[in-house]
């Protein structure tokens, strides 16, 4: 059965995946659909995957999914990886909103939103953080007032990935000021609504993926509330698990370090990388990266056997961001002064990618809940340690 499916998946991938896209999968929080949509092959690939139902392979068919089991999804992933293919739907809507709506949404909400997500035609952004609510997310202040036949939303969001390209936003809004976590609701906002404005933020890497989002007296239909009023925090926590989960999945393999180091740094008479200090650190990194990948594989296998432990996710996110940051540092070091280019002549694509990746890498331990917040969550939820006294009180 599984071998038959593997053969089917392999044949289909080979027939349908445009080779020009090999290994060009979007990176979370760096670039995604809009980055690629200028490419007609990307559209072709997205639409073929949508038609096949493999963009949301585990979802029910009525929502555009493929209704595949865990074993088949694993095979599908392996077969895509084999030829450098990827799931083009793997964006905010698919990784975060989709599983949340499947768990908490009404039948109407699922029917309205999931097919567009599964087809990659409806793009979503996450309206969570605010200028005054970063690590302390529950202190968010964007107000949502019940006007009888609709809600009126007023406030400002920040670090909203891809808001300038999004069709919809899932947002946390304050519906009760008397309770911090118990006064938050989970709302779906049409980005075309009057009063929604977005402004990209330029990061140190030059990336303009994150945005500010201003909500000025935005009218939202009452049907767009997910779950109950003032019960949004529980939904948000679940969604953040999905987010951490997708972030801890790793960021792709990237350019292999060993041949790059051999080429750029040179080798000694025994064929070892000539810079012995760098060699030591490259090996230590390779070993940690392998241990991390083995861990992700092990956790996935345990999950399929029904032994999944969601409380591990914050620890995995931190391990993954650390491995990726060290990797970005090492590539820069291997490239030397050729790794310091910003743009233009005199630098290869690999070199320019390395410098921008190095600059962007600091974000790995900030977005999706900072390194420190992940540690706080794991200390409490995974290790059962007592809550720290609130600072400043």
């Amino acid at each position, binding site marked *: 059965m599984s071998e038959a499916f593997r053969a089917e998946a392999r044949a289909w991938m080979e027939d349908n995946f445009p080779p020009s896209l090999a290994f060009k999968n979007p990176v979370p929080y760096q670039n995604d659909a809009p980055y690629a949509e200028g490419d007609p092959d990307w559209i072709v690939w997205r639409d073929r995957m949508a038609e096949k139902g493999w963009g949301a392979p585990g979802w029910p068919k009525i929502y555009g999914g493929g209704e595949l089991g865990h074993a088949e999804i694993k095979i599908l992933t392996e077969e895509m990886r084999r030829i450098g293919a990827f799931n083009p739907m793997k964006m905010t809507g698919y990784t975060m909103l989709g599983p949340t709506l499947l768990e908490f949404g009404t039948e109407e909400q699922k029917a309205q939103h999931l097919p567009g997500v599964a087809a990659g035609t409806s793009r979503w952004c996450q309206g969570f953080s605010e200028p005054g609510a970063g690590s302390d997310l529950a202190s968010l202040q964007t107000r949502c007032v019940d006007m009888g036949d609709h809600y009126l939303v007023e406030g400002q969001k920040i670090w909203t990935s891809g808001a300038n390209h999004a069709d919809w936003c899932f947002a946390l809004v304050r519906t009760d000021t008397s309770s911090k976590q118990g006064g938050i609701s989970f709302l779906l906002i049409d980005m075309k609504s009057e009063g929604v404005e977005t402004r990209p933020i330029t990061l140190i890497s030059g990336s303009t993926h994150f945005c500010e989002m201003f909500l000025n007296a935005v009218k939202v239909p009452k049907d767009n509330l997910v779950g109950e009023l003032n019960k949004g925090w529980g939904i948000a926590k679940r969604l953040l698990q999905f987010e951490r989960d997708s972030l801890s999945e790793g960021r792709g393999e990237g350019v292999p370090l*060993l041949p790059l180091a051999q080429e750029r740094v040179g080798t000694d008479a025994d*064929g*070892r*990388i000539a810079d012995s200090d760098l*060699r*030591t650190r*490259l*090996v*230590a990194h*390779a*070993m*940690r990266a*392998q*241990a*991390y990948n*083995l*861990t992700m*594989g*092990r956790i996935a*296998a*345990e999950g*399929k*056997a029904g*032994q999944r432990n969601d409380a*591990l996710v*914050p*620890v*995995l996110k*931190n*391990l993954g961001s650390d491995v990726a940051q060290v990797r970005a540092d090492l590539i820069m070091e291997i490239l030397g002064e050729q790794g310091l280019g910003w743009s233009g002549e005199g630098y290869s694509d690999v070199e320019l990618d390395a410098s921008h990746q190095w600059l962007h890498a600091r974000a790995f331990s900030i977005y999706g809940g900072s390194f*420190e917040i*992940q*540690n*706080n969550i*794991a*200390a409490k939820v*995974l*290790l*059962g*340690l*007592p*809550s*720290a*006294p609130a600072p400043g009180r």
Partner: protein
Amino acid sequence: MAVLTEEQTMLRDMAAEWVPDRAPVTAFRRVAHEKLGHDPELWAEIAGTMGWAGILVPEEHGGSDFGYLSMGLVLEEMGRTLVASPLIATGVLGVAALRLGGDAEQQTAWLARIATGEAIVAFACDEDGRHDPANVKLTAKRDGDGFRLDGVKAPVSEGVSARLLIVAARDEAGKIVLLLVPGDAAGVTRTRLDRIDGREAALIRFDGVTVGADAALTGGAALLDRVLDRGRAALAAEMLGSATQAFETTIDYLKTRVQFGQLIGSFQALQHRAVAMQGELLMTRSAVEAALTALDEDRDDAPMLVSLAKAIAGDTLRLCSREMVQMHGGIGMTEEHDAGLYYKRSATADATGGNSAFHRERYARLAGY
């Protein structure tokens, strides 16, 4: 934890029940204090009643042939309470050497006796207090049909009580040869080494020790490497258990110790270090299970995975045992508290079979760095 078979789950549950009941840390304290090496009664239970000495022994020789992952599950539980036993020396290194390099007669002579626990085996590789299998100096010169051995091995785990020594030697052509030497052979002098962890180790002199042609195992340096890898992976599993216990005991302490009017586990400086340990333990478990599985499947990447496992297990046990001492504060420095026992074990276990630095270098060479 890897997804286990029913058989493995049963084995692990049995070990998790037997170890704290019959071999708690207090049992290890007695063995260490009285310099017993190991407790013969406990060994009789480990090998006889529980059948663990035969986990890698083929069924026709009285074992269960459950494999390395299964052996690792048992050793992990034993590592939790620092059980001092000849299980790795005998049931892993001894069995692996005989299975991978022994002929039918050699296997018949020893495997059944190993499975029952009657024969304790020691594997003698290290010299001059270093793990350096590429530079074995003990000589095995041709002597009639057999060999004549001269040299010194130290430290040799379970080298005092072992009935059979498996000795890595260098022949006249400069090639590595593994030889079976009875512990009581003429010319063998065994001196007990008193080490910080209280476990059994010996300095063994070989002065013109003669053995017959039937003493040699087949396989040379490659066999030595394969046998060592099986011992290293097994030890890494035991170290994972020790590190896990050091961690869990420390977490419990953070939940009970009060200072400044609050549980010290509420302090963020300690919480984040506790989570860091949990992360290292997760990766160590993955590496250890991957190495044991690769050995069970006899895969080509087993040597790299074993070096990964042994290196990360060494680092993680060092981290967790140090944090155990540090987070317990003054009490952690006392002989009365168990923290020091884990700290001492972190050093000897790391050195045995090659320390973390040795295995990072080995991994580097295997990977082409």
